[in-house]
């Protein structure tokens, strides 16, 4: 593989990521599935990097799950997103930071629609005004939260307490990057590095010392697919897609998967348990499973945050071997204890627990 070929593509897909003053829109599911991710995004930006990130408690779901599940019409979701823009306008923010790839895809789709069909923007303004009395400015930029961590990856690397390196062997960890489909497949120009060779997570992994694995099914969807997983009987579709990826990356024995999409991270983590139950197969080196982390969780580890504060214990595939490899000391006995020592609920059926 010729790295200069990828650099050539990356140079063609550079988007504007602002330096500061973000209006943050949260994901519906991330706070449940990776409890510390969004919190650490805010901590890293505010405390480690000294950035201004604004949140408005009146911000709601973007209704993306309903939209992709065919129960929320496009006009409705445009109006909901317009309301978010109105909140940003009210607070004086022009740059939206989006936590979720589904939302990011929806924001991209709506902005492109408004650009190409200005009458839809006019109609949305009218709908929003009628419904809420609000008006809004179209934001100057939209960034996915991973775009922002990508932008500051070198600064994070300079403050790093740990690297994506096996401290025993000194070798870089082998890391799989997985990009949510709606990050750049619909609109490649909205993604750092485009759709075929996205740079957004690769850039972080390389800046923090890891080696990126380019395996045959790298570009394949995790199978999340909304309508597929929403119906229980159809989940075999989703499961099949994730397994296809695990089988394809298996020969490389990856230490870690980093994803930038809530659905992908959740499914690639939880499906490892399901596949273990159905097929009796556990992936990863020594059959220990492959931890699937968000980019904020990895950034948090690199910056030296406590893994149990980050919330790694609430993933199905536990990260203790990974932490040992990186030289991060974490007491397994404290995993499910609150700060004051109160026991927290312990999830069942953990892999490598």
């Amino acid at each position, binding site marked *: 593989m010729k790295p200069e070929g990828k650099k050539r593509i990356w140079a063609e897909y550079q988007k504007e990521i602002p330096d500061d003053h973000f209006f943050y829109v949260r994901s519906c599911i991330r706070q449940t599935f990776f409890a510390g991710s969004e919190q650490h995004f805010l901590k890293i930006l505010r405390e480690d990097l000294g950035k201004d990130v604004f949140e408005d408690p009146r911000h709601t779901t973007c209704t993306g799950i309903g939209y992709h599940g065919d129960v929320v019409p496009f006009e409705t979701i445009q109006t909901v997103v317009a309301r978010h823009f109105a909140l940003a306008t009210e607070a004086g923010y022009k740059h939206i930071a989006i936590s979720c790839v589904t939302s990011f895809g929806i924001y991209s789709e709506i902005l492109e629609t408004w650009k190409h069909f200005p009458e839809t923007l006019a109609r949305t303004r009218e709908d929003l005004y009628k419904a809420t009395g609000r008006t809004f400015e179209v934001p100057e930029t939209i960034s996915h939260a991973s775009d922002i961590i990508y932008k500051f990856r070198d600064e994070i690397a300079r403050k790093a307490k740990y690297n994506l390196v096996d401290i025993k062997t000194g070798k870089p960890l082998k890391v799989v990057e997985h990009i949510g489909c709606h990050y750049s497949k619909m609109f490649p120009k909205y993604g750092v590095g485009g759709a075929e060779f996205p740079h957004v997570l690769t850039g972080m992994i390389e800046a923090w010392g890891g080696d990126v694995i380019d395996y045959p099914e790298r570009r394949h969807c995790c199978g999340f697919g909304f309508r597929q997983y929403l119906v*229980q*009987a159809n*989940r*075999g579709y989703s*499961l*099949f897609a994730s397994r296809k990826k695990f089988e394809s990356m298996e020969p490389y024995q990856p230490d870690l998967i980093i994803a930038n999409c809530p659905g992908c991270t959740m499914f690639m983590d939880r499906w490892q348990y399901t*596949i273990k*139950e*159905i*097929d009796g197969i556990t992936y990863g080196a020594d059959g220990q499973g492959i931890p699937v982390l968000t980019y904020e969780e990895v950034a948090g580890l690199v910056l030296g945050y406590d893994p149990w504060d980050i919330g790694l214990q609430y993933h199905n595939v536990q990260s203790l071997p990974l932490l040992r490899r990186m030289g991060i000391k974490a007491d397994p006995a404290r995993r499910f204890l609150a700060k004051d020592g109160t026991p927290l609920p312990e999830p069942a059926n953990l892999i490598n627990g």
Partner: protein
Amino acid sequence: MSEQKANRFGFAINRSRAINYDTSDRKVREYVTMREPSFRLCFACGGCTATCTAGQHASFNLRRMNTYIRRGEIDSLREEVARCMLCGKCLLVCPRGVNTRNVVATTAEALRKLDRNEL
């Protein structure tokens, strides 16, 4: 075991629909090509299928069967080949002069040999 476990979740892992050329069995193709070299000439026009007596009332498709032979899709091939009545009408139509009737006969022979581990 797989079925039993699957019931617990209410769904199973879907099977792949993709043809994996690197794992498929092309012994039948080799057998047919060697004995009926004109088989190589098929360019999938579908003339044979259009005129096929069996194809009018059963899902027999000689054009598709040729593709299965080439890709080594044995299970699909088995279903196809049994439906041919060997009337030979396809021979008259083929613009590339493929000995279509013999392709079917040779394929059936190859499948029998495959079952007996003679390929």
